[in-house]
């Protein structure tokens, strides 16, 4: 069972067991699926209904550690258990089928190996720093270790990070996590994205106006869990890696 820590509203009250986090209460992209064409409808409903349940690439131990890591990288403690978005099975599926992203950095091992090395290193870092496996650590300590990777200064040092640059591993991991999470219709509902749009496109292009089936934003204040290290640091600059850059195709 993974550990939890909950975000909360400043006015009081944990944000937990939410059907739908975010500022678009009552908005559902899936409710629009009758307006999507067959190929997309099939793909997206399959993504929601048929999450692969068996882990085929990772060993059970690796899967457990990676689950705990993902719970901190892509925390979903606010989501109701029936509404959490599967991340690990998607990564496992990709690695099992060896579906590549088209390239590998010359200073990196293959994606499969990178994951194995990285998971192992993180677990060993936990053991050497806190004398406990990563899974057993309290949330805050898990975040301490991950934050050190995020900052590019692994604490404690581990030989794996001599073999593969820590910022590249971090980018690999984060990108796989966000790909799994933000390709899910429940995440689209959370952020107010319109979802698939064919054959029906958009009518209201400017001023952020909602389509008739979209919802207007209803903002509220919320805070990350009190001891969380992953809140954005508005003042601080992002980690500087001369060669870290985006992998998305935008133009």
């Amino acid at each position, binding site marked *: 069972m993974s550990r939890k820590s909950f975000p909360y509203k400043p006015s009081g009250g944990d944000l937990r067991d939410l059907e739908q986090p975010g500022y678009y209460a009552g908005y559902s992209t899936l409710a629009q699926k009758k*307006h999507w064409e067959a190929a997309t409808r099939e793909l997206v409903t399959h993504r929601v209904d048929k999450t692969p349940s068996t882990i085929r690439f990772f060993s059970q131990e690796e899967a457990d550690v990676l689950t705990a890591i993902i719970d901190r990288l892509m925390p979903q403690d606010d989501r109701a258990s029936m509404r959490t978005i599967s991340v690990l099975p998607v990564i496992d599926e990709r690695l099992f089928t060896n579906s590549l992203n088209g390239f590998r950095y010359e200073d990196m091992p293959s994606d499969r190996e990178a994951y194995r090395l990285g998971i192992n290193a993180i677990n060993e870092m936990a053991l050497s720093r806190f004398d406990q496996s990563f899974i057993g650590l309290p949330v805050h300590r898990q975040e301490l270790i991950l934050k050190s990777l995020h900052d590019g200064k692994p604490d404690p040092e581990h030989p794996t990070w001599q073999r593969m640059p820590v910022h590249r591993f971090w980018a690999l991991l984060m990108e796989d996590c966000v790909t799994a999470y933000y390709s899910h219709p429940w995440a689209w509902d959370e952020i107010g994205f319109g979802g698939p749009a*064919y*054959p*029906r*496109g958009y*009518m*209201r292009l400017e*001023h952020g*106006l*909602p389509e*008739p089936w979209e919802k207007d934003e209803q903002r509220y204040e919320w805070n990350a869990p009190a001891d969380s290290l992953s809140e954005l640091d508005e003042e601080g600059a992002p980690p500087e890696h001369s060669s870290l850059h985006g992998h998305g195709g935008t133009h």
Partner: protein
Amino acid sequence: MSFILTTALERSANRSLPEPLSGAVTTALEHLRKGCFQRSLCLVVSATSVASGLEVGYEHYKGSYSNPVMYTPVALSAALAGAGLLGFFSGVAARTLLRWISVITLADGIIGFFFHIRGVARKPGGWKLPVTNIVMGPPIFAPLLFGTSAYLGLMASYLRREEDLHSVAGRVHNAISEFAPGKADWRTNLRYGRFQKHLSSVTVLWAFFSGFEALYSHYKANFRYKAQWSPVLLTPLVMAAGIGAVKSRRIANTALPAASALALADGAIGFYYHVRGITRRPGGVKKPLYNTLYGPPVFAPLLFAACGFLGLMASLLRREKK
């Protein structure tokens, strides 16, 4: 004796306006009532077809003239504007050239209507997505609205000229028509300014078309401003007054001019807002062409005002002779 708008207007003009002006108003109203306003209507036709030519010109520019048939309304607007001008100078031109160009333009509007329906059908999802595709497809009623000036041109071609009112021949004709027994055909009715019911029903139709355009384009903009509801709400009012005017002379002289005046005013205000909307777009007046293309359509409120104009005109005419 029921309330007659023109009589009331004449009276109040006589009472409150100084001489040359009150005389002019009386004459103008008489010209209208007697159907002797060919020259002025020709000028109106000329002006409106310049406006609608500009509008269809830039709307079809947006549509990239991807079908050569899209040039026809632009060319016809120019032709109609020219014919209107000629009609102002020559009665023969008004009765021949203007009439035929108006008929062709009206036919073009109807053909365009079918092309626009087809355009909506050919959008992804076609008529299965009526709302999206009507909003985003070619404006379906625009080709019919484009026919407004052609319709006026056709009317003008049957009218008598201003000078006919007091000419000898004109008076004789007048007398004959006033006292001739039997059913008058529509041409005679037109010639003598007896087409109030006809024009009222046309007003109803036009109000529906332009009101519908206002409805979906303001819906597209999510009714961001309260004022965007005004043409949508006024439309049924004008339509009801127009239908009433067909049935009752009283309504034609009271409710119709009132509702039409409101529509006219609303169109004028809308025109101001649309122009302001264009200047407020990103780039504002520094991008005049683009912002006219994709800002609020400048001429659309004027089209709505045009239906108010038609209604007002209807209320000043005489009713058809039975």
